[in-house]
């Protein structure tokens, strides 16, 4: 299984997923955590899932029916994914030779791309 390209956005998403690795989160929640605009995260989530770094499941029907809303898709980083993500983030960090700009994503997209 390959590894996703470590764009700046991917790194922010991975950091969000690693914050509480056991916790399941839905897309909008991850966008907020990663500091990315809502609606932009899905290609990254799809790529991470394809690579086996994350897994996703539908919300328990009892929960969303009780809340009276459509069911959510939840994402969680896998054990293997967490390990590989930490290594990849460390590599990206070293390659940049400076810390990530934080959660605000204030830097232009692609600024921190490392292949």
């Amino acid at each position, binding site marked *: 299984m390959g*590894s996703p390209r470590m764009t700046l956005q991917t790194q922010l998403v991975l950091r969000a997923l690693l914050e509480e690795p056991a916790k399941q989160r839905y897309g*909008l929640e991850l966008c907020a955590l990663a500091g990315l605009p809502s*609606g932009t995260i899905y290609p990254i989530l*799809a*790529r991470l899932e394809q690579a086996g770094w994350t897994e996703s499941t539908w919300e328990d029907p009892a929960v969303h029916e009780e809340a009276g809303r*459509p069911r959510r898709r939840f994402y969680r980083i896998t054990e293997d994914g967490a390990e590989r993500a930490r290594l990849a983030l460390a590599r990206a960090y070293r390659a940049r030779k400076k810390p990530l700009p934080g959660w605000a994503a204030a830097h232009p997209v692609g600024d921190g791309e490392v292949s």
Partner: protein
Amino acid sequence: MSCGHTTPLPISLPSSSPTRRPRWHEGQTRRSGDPYLTHCLAVARIVADVGMPPTVVCAALLHDVIEDTLCPPGRLAGQFGLTVAQLVADVSTVDLRAIPPDAAPRSAQPPHSEAVLVIRLADRLHNMRTIEFVAAAKQYGKARETIEVFAPMARAAGLADVSRELHNLSAAVLQSAPTAYAVTTRLLALLTLLLPGTQRARWRQEWQAELAALPTRRTCACFTLRVLLSTPHLSLTLRRPVCQEPRR
């Protein structure tokens, strides 16, 4: 009631009431971000404007205290009297459809059921005035209920102005919200056609759930636009294997 958002009401209330009202709603906010108290005051103002006496206006001020705060009902009766306490209790519990509308001219002391009805209508009227802050998916249901139940009840109770405003506010939502919400939902469904066939249902459902969590039409529109811009990328991602990382 020591809060910076108070607006003087156009009547004088019993000395026992609002100025000494405890801060039960303190810290609570409306979806708009306004302090919850602004809703209580607006409802009381509507009730006062239709000519209800001070006890009913007082009950309107307190109408959510039992339902939405930890205030014990007994305390309300002790501080504001049994009439006000009973009105507040009934506003929270009585089924609106069970109240017989009475179009008789306003009397100095309206029947209990009429007072309950007026407070419920005023509550709905202010909620409809601030409907823009409600999640887009819920606006439609609220507007339908208002136009089908509340507006006719207001008309039957002789509150023509309230009925008209309820009707107009609901009609505006029903004319625009379904279009806005339906267009957004349809657009997202159309976007999934760019994705591999086996993946379409999953993403359509996922985006619909995200859309339902967004609070305003504007945030829904921004979300849809960003999904639209990122869907070609998502489509490519789903159709090709993950890029191999060079071995180090």
